[in-house]
């Protein structure tokens, strides 16, 4: 059986073999491309100018890859619009606007006619069919694939006109003892370029080898652009070539979307669709190909159209996942026959949605509809008090005048709320700017963290984390933090988000601590918020030898702009590097690798329920581990991070008489944290007097 796939074809122009010219097909291609971009930009001392020849799905993916490596990207396309196989001219034009926004330069109706070399032999210029020239440092060819059919040719098997081993519906080649499947097989004069038909052919071969009667019938294909950051998808008769076909098009230049449905002459049957800028309809409509739409086509395309909800009631024989050829019926069966109760279980059971993922929305709808039909309730309720999810409650509250919890629960819920819905309502009200978060109406809704602007720790004390935008901090501020920590006896640590955490503050100390910090110019770092917390950045062009942009400035700008913007979840800007393409150091890589290996070893051991190795262990934490016997992984790793004994804030064995008077810096250590932790921990007998006086707020 031949399943040799295809090879990336490149035009036979001058210079396609120059260093710096790549194909985009295999992982090796990518590895070489990545290495070239890193080395060449280091050698030239500037970001590279990249060009991609071919504006198809893979060409755009390659251009996005170039950009993510730090190079610029110009896409040169021979046809008059991008993705010309999958999109009509209108869709291609819409796509051009979108990729321009990503910073790609698109040159259509142009061919690359040759490549020129620099003095050092590497590629430096691209000649174009309009006699223009493009300066380039790296070129990627994505000009289509050709079936890899050399073995077949040399063995005398029938070869298709456009290449590929000729197969019939049984997937047999001209020699009945030889089969061919996938991209190397030519069925009806066509070779496929997707995973799904290859899988279908493989099914046919297996069935036939077992004596079955199965025949291969090409299923209509759909394509979705991936990995570029722009939505573009199409299926079926994109160009309206079916006789009498009608096209319903909706273009929104403001929202930058282009959507088109192709339907039969009676406007009933769906023949194809094009979606650019917003492909939400693609997974819903693709399974409906060749079937009655059930509604006016324009209802689907109108922006707020009352588009009928598709998904739940698809006929059983409709293929919902074309990658794995799973039908709606099979998904339903997973629920009814195999007892799956979540989308995750259905995916694991049927494999639907496990390849490209574009069908997951439809699969989700099917699963929920089936669960409901089977009497299993799919509750969307937030909790016992509100029957709707957060987004719906937000919309209800935003559209009304309700601005306190009591009003909201009276109008839309029951009871007096709980620890789930109250903080949610608090977040909603704070997004709607319904008043100070600690006002008498709103304070009872806040989790203790939001209430006291610090994070509750395991012993009931709090950690205080001031905001340090972009990680930039003055010596004076550092000293202010140091002074506060020393005065209140707090344990300090640099947090993962480039801030300084002070741990072990009692609730009654928080107002004093915050007063001190506010006087020094700090504000709360929202380390507890369902909001933007922190934006991490590197040091950037102000100091870095390789810095080309002001990443600290950008980090500060972003953080200050969006700090406290309340959301449904916490947001954290991860390491902001304005110069992509700089790789992690080798040492860091090795360390992570070793760390993972160690984790894996520990896990393996635990799976086998073996005791940890005895005898001399490597490194401190492991020795602890060996002495104490079997422990779950996280403890082993956490042990390594414990501060050296001298720096630990806990003095366990200090006798009671060592308590100091208030404001002695060591007071807290002796008195407050004196009690032992762990198994013999007892409740503290006395609280300082202040706490008895009602809740205090910083």
């Amino acid at each position: 059986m031949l399943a040799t796939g295809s090879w990336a074809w490149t035009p036979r122009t001058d210079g396609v073999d120059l260093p710096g010219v790549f194909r985009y097909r295999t992982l090796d291609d990518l590895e070489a491309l990545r290495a070239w971009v890193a080395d060449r930009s280091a050698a030239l001392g500037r970001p590279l100018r990249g060009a991609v020849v071919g504006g198809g799905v893979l060409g755009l993916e390659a251009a996005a890859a170039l950009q993510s490596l730090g190079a610029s990207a110009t896409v040169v396309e021979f046809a008059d619009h991008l993705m010309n196989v999958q999109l009509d001219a209108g869709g291609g034009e819409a796509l051009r606007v979108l990729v321009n926004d990503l910073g790609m330069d698109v040159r259509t109706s142009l061919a690359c006619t040759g490549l020129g070399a620099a003095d050092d032999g590497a590629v430096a210029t691209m000649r174009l069919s309009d006699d223009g020239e493009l300066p380039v440092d790296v070129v990627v060819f994505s000009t289509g694939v050709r079936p890899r059919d050399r073995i077949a040719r040399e063995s005398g098997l029938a070869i298709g006109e456009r290449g590929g081993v000729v197969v019939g519906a049984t997937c047999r080649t001209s020699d009945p003892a030889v089969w061919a499947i996938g991209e190397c097989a030519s069925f009806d004069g066509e070779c496929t370029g997707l995973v799904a038909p290859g899988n279908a052919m493989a099914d046919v071969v297996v069935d036939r080898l077992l004596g079955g009667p199965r025949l291969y019938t090409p299923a209509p294909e759909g394509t979705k652009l991936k990995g570029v950051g722009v939505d573009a998808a199409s299926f079926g008769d994109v160009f309206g070539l079916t006789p009498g076909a009608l096209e319903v098009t909706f273009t929104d230049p403001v929202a930058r979307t282009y959507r088109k449905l192709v339907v039969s002459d009676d406007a009933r049957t769906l023949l194809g669709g094009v979606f650019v800028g917003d492909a939400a309809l693609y997974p819903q409509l693709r399974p409906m190909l060749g079937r009655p739409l059930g509604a006016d086509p324009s209802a689907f395309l109108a922006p707020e159209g009352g588009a009928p909800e598709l998904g739940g009631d698809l006929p059983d024989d409709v293929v919902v996942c074309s990658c794995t050829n799973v039908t709606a019926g099979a998904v339903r069966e997973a629920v009814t026959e195999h007892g799956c109760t979540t989308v995750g279980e259905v995916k694991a059971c049927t494999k639907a949605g496990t390849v490209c993922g574009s069908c997951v929305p439809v699969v989700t709808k099917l699963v929920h509809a089936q669960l409901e039909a089977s009497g299993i309730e799919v509750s969307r309720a937030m909790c016992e008090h509100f029957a709707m999810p957060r987004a719906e409650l937000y919309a209800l509250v935003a559209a009304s005048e309700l601005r306190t919890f009591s009003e909201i629960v009276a109008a839309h819920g029951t009871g007096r709320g709980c620890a789930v819905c109250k903080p949610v309502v608090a977040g909603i009200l704070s997004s709607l700017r319904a008043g100070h978060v600690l006002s008498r109406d709103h304070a009872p809704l806040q989790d203790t963290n939001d209430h006291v602007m610090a994070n509750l720790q395991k012993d009931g004390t709090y950690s205080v984390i001031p905001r340090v935008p972009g990680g930039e901090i003055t010596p004076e501020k550092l000293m202010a933090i140091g002074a506060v920590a020393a005065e209140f006896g707090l344990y300090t640590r640099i947090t993962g988000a480039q801030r300084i955490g002070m741990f072990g503050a009692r609730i009654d100390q928080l107002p004093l601590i915050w007063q001190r910090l506010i006087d020094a110019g700090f504000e709360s770092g929202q380390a507890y918020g369902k909001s933007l917390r922190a934006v991490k950045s590197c040091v950037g062009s102000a100091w870095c030898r390789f810095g080309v942009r002001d990443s600290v400035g950008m980090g500060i700008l972003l953080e200050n702009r969006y700090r406290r913007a309340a959301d449904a979840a916490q947001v954290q800007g991860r390491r902001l590097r304005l110069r992509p393409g700089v790789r992690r150091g080798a040492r860091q890589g090795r360390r992570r690798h070793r760390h993972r290996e160690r984790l894996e070893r520990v896990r393996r051991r635990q799976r086998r329920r073996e005791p940890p190795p005895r005898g001399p262990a490597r490194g401190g934490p492991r020795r602890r581990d060996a002495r104490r016997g079997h422990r779950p992984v996280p403890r082993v790793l956490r042990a390594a991070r414990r501060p050296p004994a001298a720096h630990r804030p806990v003095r366990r064995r200090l006798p009671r008489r060592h308590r100091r008077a208030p404001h002695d810096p060591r007071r807290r250590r002796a008195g407050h944290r004196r009690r032992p932790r762990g198994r013999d921990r007892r409740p503290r007998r006395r609280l300082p007097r202040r706490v008895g006086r009602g809740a205090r707020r910083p």
Partner: protein
Amino acid sequence: MSTVLVRTDVCALDALVPERGAAALVDGRQVALFRLADDTVLAVQNHDPFCGANVLSRGIVGSVGDAPTVTSPMHKQVWDLRTGACLDTGGKVPVLDEPVDLATWAVEVRDGRVLVAHA
């Protein structure tokens, strides 16, 4: 032997924020006081049996069915404020061998003052 109940004046009712707890030291024990929306005041132990920290007064007040409840700010166990009965252990067991239910105190509001009864 009969015990004599003593009432300790803890604070003014106005000092308590509706549906927000406050901790008080009554006869050497930490008591979490909760003023409900209808101005009744209920008292349970401030000590969270599940985590061993004195934090229940900082939990969120709400309801389960008819029962007014407090949720631990630590790990979200839920108790009935009237009886101290644990309604949701969250699948956890207390760190020490403490009962999961909370001790309760009778509270009276007289002339705008909150009085907690204890032996």
